[in-house]
């Protein structure tokens, strides 16, 4: 039933330079497609309506959303800008590999619970606690953060990209990506002092991944080391 020769060829293919080059294109396209799809749904638009608003075609919008836009197909920056304008989002967000749709939805879900008023500590620690709970309960995390231990506890510098998106902004979002997990998110947030960033920081030091590094508040133990959520 096993085909060792094919499996070996697959492994060789995955290690090849050609694979890596195209893989990065397709990965970028998947992230882009999810963002276009998600924001189109937020605005309750069809692909045709978005195409018309962005002066494009339904076929191109469909290809972009479905991440089937080939690396050999050229697409101009002006079209991307028209799509971003039509979706009422920042073009930099649309193209940033640091930002993904499901993390965007997570922040959009947490935002109203804080009356959209949050400091950097709440901004970083609340996804951490949610990811920790979901990893324990369901085996995966919602956000695209790769947490490391820094001064103020679990941290990922991608937070700055999200912060610039959410600072002084509110979003009305159709939750396509996290809708099945809102109960788990609520559970994760229910026992936390979500409006007190300083307490969240202190509590983050009491979590298992931080304890494993021996991290203490004000100390340098495990500095910059990756936090393993799924042990």
């Amino acid at each position: 039933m096993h085909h060792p020769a094919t499996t070996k060829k697959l492994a060789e293919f995955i290690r090849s330079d050609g694979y890596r080059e195209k893989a990065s294109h397709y990965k970028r396209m998947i992230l882009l497609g999810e963002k276009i799809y998600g924001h189109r749904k937020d605005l309750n638009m069809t692909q045709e309506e978005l195409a018309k608003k962005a002066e494009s075609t339904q076929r191109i919008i469909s290809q972009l959303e479905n991440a089937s836009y080939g690396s050999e197909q050229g697409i101009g920056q002006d079209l991307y800008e028209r799509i971003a304008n039509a979706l009422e989002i920042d073009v930099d967000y649309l193209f940033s590999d640091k930002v993904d749709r499901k993390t965007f939805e997570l922040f959009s879900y947490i935002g109203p619970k804080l009356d959209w008023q949050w400091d950097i500590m709440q901004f970083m620690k609340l996804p951490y606690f949610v990811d920790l709970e979901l990893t324990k309960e369901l085996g995966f995390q919602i956000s695209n953060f790769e947490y490391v231990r820094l001064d103020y506890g679990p941290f990922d510098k991608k937070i700055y990209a999200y912060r610039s998106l959410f600072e002084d902004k509110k979003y009305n979002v159709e939750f396509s990506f996290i809708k099945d997990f809102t109960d788990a998110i609520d559970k994760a947030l229910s026992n936390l002092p979500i409006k007190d960033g300083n307490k969240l920081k202190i509590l983050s030091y009491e979590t298992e991944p931080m304890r494993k590094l021996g991290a203490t508040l004000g100390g340098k133990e495990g500095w910059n080391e990756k936090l393993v959520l799924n042990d």
Partner: protein
Amino acid sequence: MDVYFSYSAHTLSFGNLMEKLLVDDEDLLNMILQRIRHIADYGGNPTPPIAKPLRGDIGLCEIRTSLSRDELLRICYFVDRERKRMVLLNWFSKPDGGQHSNKYEGNAGRKTHKEVQEAIDIAVSLKAEYAEKLSHYELFPFT
């Protein structure tokens, strides 16, 4: 999350698709593998629009890849939560139900629906037998 697949006897197994694409179309193979990896990174949760839950059997999902203007390749999978695995089952292609397709109407439509249902039936049956045939599945060599 680790990804498992098999080269089972029927020609629509995921392993057989890999064999075929290694020979015929490495670009499409790459596109499919990025989708699988992306979904696996998200714990197998089917994120739209590239993956969706399948009708019928709760827990079965599909990863969708456009083959052409009006044809979709669909890979059926499920998540084995106990073993923390994403398990790839079978694949099939079907006309895309978009505005350019008339393959869901009349006799052609009935034929399409029948073929889709047969493929889903295979997925349901592979999933049902999976726990008894764990040794048929192997780890996908992503790393």
